[in-house]
């Protein structure tokens, strides 16, 4: 099978054997790193910082994609969990001066824990009711963070900046560091998607009765998904804190969680391409519009229009359009193969 064929399969999630699965993940990693390499080689200064933030946000998007793409659950508190991860990692740094990797993992674990608790309503509610409950949780976090703000390691005007990882002090090195962690997140999600949890999530999404009739524990697997989504968001929050070396409460309104969800829909929640596209849409495109003199509100309006278009014409998002293309190419190939014209 050709390299391109593998790439198509990796994107459309149409895996067969364990070996092919490993190949697909390897190819995804390669493409992802090539993209990061191109960005690292061309972007600088302000843009590099912004794209680093976009990659950090991609981790939170992966969580949204697990909950929405895999389980069909609309959770609007995902960006607040980015804040939780950022808060915990900053606090641990300022209080104990722990190394970045330790504070990052702790931020991820703390957000996973909060994510599990915030995910409990999903055992009762789905659809619009779950969206409302989780939006209120995001609002509660907004109120909390506005009152207490993020730890800054001092009082008054004295601010201490977060130390980046020892191996990634410069902006460029830190961008690559973030991209690699982001890739590890993608591999983690793909590994889930293509094994027992992914199959069980699919059963729950199809019909909870089906999951029960298959002997699966909805509570266990749904809680697992919320833990994973929270963990990824928390890691993203720690990386975001490292990007700016501090965080500010104004960036963590409940509206950010809605924007993140919109980015997930627009990008597409069925595969990794959607995660990358969504991350760039949420973080890089608004900055692009801003820097070319377009008011931020126009950016939001464009985003909204895109969202309506996505819902009306392509519910699987930009990555879904990509999937369709893959479908057409591969089914044409299969037909030709059947006629004995070409071999894959």
């Amino acid at each position, binding site marked *: 099978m050709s390299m391109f064929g593998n790439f198509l399969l990796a994107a459309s999630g149409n*895996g067969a054997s364990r070996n092919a699965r490993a190949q697909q993940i390897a190819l995804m990693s390669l493409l992802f790193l090539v993209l990061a390499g191109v960005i690292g080689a061309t972007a600088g200064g302000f843009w590099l910082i912004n794209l680093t933030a976009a990659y950090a946000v991609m981790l939170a998007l992966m969580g949204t994609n697990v909950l929405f793409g895999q389980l069909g659950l609309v959770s609007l508190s995902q960006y607040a969990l980015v804040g939780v991860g950022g808060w915990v990692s900053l606090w641990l740094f300022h209080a104990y001066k722990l190394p970045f990797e330790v504070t990052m993992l702790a931020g991820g674990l703390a957000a996973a824990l909060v994510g599990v608790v915030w995910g409990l309503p999903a055992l009762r509610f789905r659809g619009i009711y779950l969206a409302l409950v989780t939006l209120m949780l995001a609002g509660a976090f907004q109120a909390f963070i506005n009152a207490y703000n993020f730890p800054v390691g001092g009082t008054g005007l004295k601010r201490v900046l977060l130390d980046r990882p020892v191996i990634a002090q410069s902006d460029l090195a830190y961008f690559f560091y973030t991209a690699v962690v982001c890739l590890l997140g993608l591999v983690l999600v793909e590994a889930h998607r293509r094994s027992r949890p992914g199959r069980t999530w699919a059963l729950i999404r199809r019909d909870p009765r089906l999951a029960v*009739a*298959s*002997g699966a524990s909805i509570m266990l697997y749904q809680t697992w998904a919320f833990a994973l989504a929270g963990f990824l968001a928390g890691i993203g929050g720690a990386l975001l804190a490292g990007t700016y070396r501090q965080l500010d409460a104004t960036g963590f309104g409940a509206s950010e969680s809605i924007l993140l969800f919109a980015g997930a829909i627009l990008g597409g929640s069925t595969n990794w391409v959607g995660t990358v596209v969504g991350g760039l849409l949420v973080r890089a495109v608004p900055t692009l519009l801003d820097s070319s003199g377009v008011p931020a509100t126009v950016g939001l309006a464009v985003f909204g229009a895109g969202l309506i278009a996505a819902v009306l014409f392509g519910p699987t998002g930009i990555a879904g359009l990509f999937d369709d293309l893959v479908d057409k190419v591969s089914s044409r190939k299969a037909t030709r193969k059947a006629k004995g014209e070409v071999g894959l």
Partner: protein
Amino acid sequence: MITINNLTVQFGGVRPLDGLSAELRAPVVGLIGPNGAGKTTLLNVLSGFVTPVQGSVRMDDVELLSLSPRQRVRAGLRRVFQQEMVVEDLTAFDNVMAIADHVSTVVTAAGEVEAAIDFVGLRAVRDVLGRRLSLYERRMTEIAKTLVGKPKVVLLDEPAAGLNDTETARLRKVVAAMPDRFGVQVVLIDHDADLIASVCHETLVLDFGKRLAIGPTAKVLEDPVVRRAYLGTA
């Protein structure tokens, strides 16, 4: 063997099952009756989605009503829903694997899935996504799902709905072969009297939640009471 004793289900003032007692012994048992007779309700009681107000149900020596729905699945009870429930973005193999994950051991799961897929004749579409399977292939995937992880009793709710004659004939062969190959007892609900007559050794007829008749299929289908209630001819 399934032993039902004095089973009653009550929804408000309605009794979909009303003091039902029956022993289902044959390898393939038919369950027929007019619309609203209580067939699907009985399946729901067996799989644990509906709790009866009284009565008992035993599968071999296991008292089912005291088990949770998941425990019943682990004990060997399998169910195919009236509406097919193949997952669109999983392959035929993964659709079957999704249940093997929870009822088989890690070591044997993949082998059991392959065997089930071969048995129902889906080898050629093993790696095709659910959304691209035909209705017949979906129905057969559903049957394959019931055959992994030491099943004991398989409940099929109108598995032939929407299939043409050729497909129904293939389905019939597969269902008839299930008891010998996998050691399961099959309970089959269907409106197709020919299908019931050709594959079920024994048939239970329900009407208004009560047992109208039970016995060898040919005899039951000839019973004047059954013909009046179910087939609409006196």
